[in-house]
């Protein structure tokens, strides 16, 4: 029972982990990308579209291509969204909040439009597309997962994207903390004028980190459809996971390593009502509020303690342009 709950929590948490890792990388460059929900949605539909076309065109799926095609499509789709965001906010100096919110609306529109079109193409009675063949490949577990009892259940019973999420978070954490690139990226987010004076290209760092961050976040969307939802795409099925990812960024005080545990906690809070007997719908919805409540608590605690390292990057949300002298 406990093993199942943890397993469900991890699976719930994985899209959030992708989303928050991507958003942390983005925010470390000083870009507050509120387009993450839209970007994750685009990441999902791009993967679905790629996979759909591949499934339609061949009779027998090549497992390698079945993974590679949606993966590449998803990364390209969401990175493109990041590029739009950067172009508008960095090059055109548009307001970051407005641009981000617009991208969310835009991304969800794109997803629903192409999702709807694909559903029309297959001509089914249910308003969804099922890519079960691809999904099976995405969900392939490690061969020894079930021979190890509940230990195997908790640690090895996931599709590969779960491990990718954790590895990406660990790598991001390492890059931010230990490398020159990370130091420069943090400097750009904290004090772009200092970075500029030190000869670091602020624009380049903002573009690259935002695009990579968006691509990572997009994988969260892909994971949701291909693994969590068993390859079934239905419009608006993604829910509020994008916003939860942004909440998770704050919860984990901009540290991808904390985000790993945070995502499992959020996932746990998300799935726990299902395991409470005789729960009513309204109580269940109250439970769904919990991650946000926890985030607000973390926000309050970090601002009371006022430790500088736990604050958002100092230049977050502010456009940078060298003063015209």
């Amino acid at each position, binding site marked *: 029972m406990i093993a199942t709950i943890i397993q469900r929590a991890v699976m719930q948490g994985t899209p959030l982990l992708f989303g928050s890792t991507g958003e942390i990388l983005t925010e470390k460059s000083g870009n507050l990308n509120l387009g993450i929900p839209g970007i994750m949605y685009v990441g999902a539909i791009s993967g679905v579209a790629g996979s759909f076309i591949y499934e339609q065109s061949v009779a027998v799926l090549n497992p390698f291509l079945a993974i590679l095609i949606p993966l590449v499509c998803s990364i390209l789709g969401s990175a493109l969204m990041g590029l739009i965001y950067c172009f508008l906010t960095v090059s055109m100096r548009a307001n970051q909040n407005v641009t981000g919110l617009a991208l969310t609306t835009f991304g969800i529109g794109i997803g629903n439009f192409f999702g709807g079109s694909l559903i029309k193409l297959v001509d089914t009675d249910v308003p969804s597309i099922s890519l079960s063949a691809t999904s099976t490949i995405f969900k392939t577990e490690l061969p020894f997962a079930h021979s190890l009892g509940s230990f195997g259940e908790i640690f090895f019973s996931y599709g590969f994207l779960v491990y990718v999420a954790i590895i990406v978070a660990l790598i991001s954490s390492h890059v931010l903390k230990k490398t020159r690139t990370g130091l420069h990226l943090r400097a750009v987010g*904290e004090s772009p004028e200092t970075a500029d*004076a*030190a*000869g670091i290209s602020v624009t380049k760092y903002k573009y690259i980190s935002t695009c990579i961050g968006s691509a990572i976040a997009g994988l969260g969307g892909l994971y949701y459809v291909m693994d969590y939802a068993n390859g079934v795409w239905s419009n608006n099925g993604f829910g509020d996971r994008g916003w939860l990812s942004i909440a998770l960024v704050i919860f984990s005080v901009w540290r991808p390593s904390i985000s790993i545990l945070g995502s499992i906690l959020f996932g746990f809070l998300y799935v726990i009502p299902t395991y409470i007997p005789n729960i009513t719908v309204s109580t269940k919805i109250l439970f769904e509020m919990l991650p946000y409540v926890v985030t607000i608590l973390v926000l309050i605690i970090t601002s009371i303690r006022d430790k*500088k390292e736990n*604050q958002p990057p100092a230049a977050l949300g502010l456009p940078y342009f060298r003063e015209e002298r």
Partner: protein
Amino acid sequence: MEQNIALELKNITKTFGNVIANKNVSLKVRKGEILSILGENGSGKTTLMNMVSGIYYPDHGQMFIDGKECIIASPKDAFNYKIGMIHQHFKLVDVFSAAENIVLGLKDEKGFDMPNYIEKIKEITEKYGFELDLQKKIYEMSVSEKQTVEIVKVLFRGADILILDEPTAVLTPQETVKLFKVLKNMRDSGKAIIIITHKLHEVLTLSDYVTVLRKGEYAGTVKTSETNEAELTEMMVGKKISLNIHRSVPENTCDRLVVQKISCMNREGTKVLDDVSFTAKSGEILGIAGIAGSGQRELLEAIAGLGHLDEGKIIYNDPKSGKEENLRDKTPLQIRQMGVRLAFVPEDRLGMGLVGNMDIVDNMMLRSYKKGKSVFLQRKAPKSLAEEIIERLEVVTPSANTPVRRLSGGNVQKILVGREIASSPTVLMAAYPVRGLDINSSYTIYNLLNEQKEKGVAVIFVGEDLDVLLELCDRILVIGSGRVTGIVDGRSATKEEIGLLMTKSSEQHDEE
């Protein structure tokens, strides 16, 4: 001997629009030598050094490094020529440690090896005698420690020519002594050092040569050992020039604002006002002279009810009732409700005085929006006031509904002064009201101040140009490091006298 010259400038000229920042300035600095650049505020010291460090590009003139002519077009070029500048405002990342800030931006073929960098930084700090904890975060540091980080940063990048812009402005006397010690160590190991300053005694204790700038022009270079304070002051302020500002003799003056022994601290806990007392009389212009940042801003804000005082009283004599009121620790609104008509033209026009994105009429309403009983705003009166100001002060604007930030500095200032005068004040305080204004606009402002004075207003004028202060003011209060160093008569005082008073208190501080 001449081979030793690290940096030489010849006939450098730089203009910004019509303003000449530097005109035919030449200087030389040799290896193993400290050169001071001395001048008043706005004499072009920082502009000159910004050209050396690649932030500005000169209009005319040549630069030589190690005897070879060179072109410095960007900070990167300056860095390649091993020139490092330490600005007054530090460029450091707050949440990074000292070491992280020092290695920031470094491009190194080899990997990112922090322990190795720290070793190298330690070599530098030990060589020159810096005291620095490399693991300490910047936000935990004092200003002096931050400055040390900046200096070590340029040294770590291999700078041979160091330029420090007003390095002691933010330091305590003890910290200054420490800084001078490391600067001398660096000089002795063969670095060329230029410090920008306006403090005479520092020039005399530290440097080998002094180059003096006056209003952007080169006033000469002297060997420190062969000069004295009086000579340097004269070079710095120059001969008195006549501006022909009309000045009437004050009539029927009475004490309007009596400031008694006020002191206050800033957020960092250093005293910015120390036992300041003076009286502003009606029908008189009281000038306040001093090096920028000596407490002028805090003084005016304290009177206007924007700053908190630790000690002292501010007594206002009401001309109508004859009552005395203490304005200390009252908010601007309370002051107004007490019937005190105090007008304040702050230094930061578009930050504190006006709202840049609002039009002229709306800016007028900032003073009067509380008037009237209806829940709706009364737009008629402010509108006619705006139109009156535009007409009377000849404000150049497309209409009264143009956002203020689109107007030129002079016009913005006219609107602000116009609004403040319209409330028919009994005390008018103006901080640097002509900063950045052309001659014509400046004279309009002087005339307005004079007009108010003749009406019997007590005018307090904070200025930076000593010529103007001497022509405009009846009395001049000189402030240095938050203390009153003297009150002189505007008609009989000389520039040299004021110049010496301006630098006086900081010297006393050091001797304590």
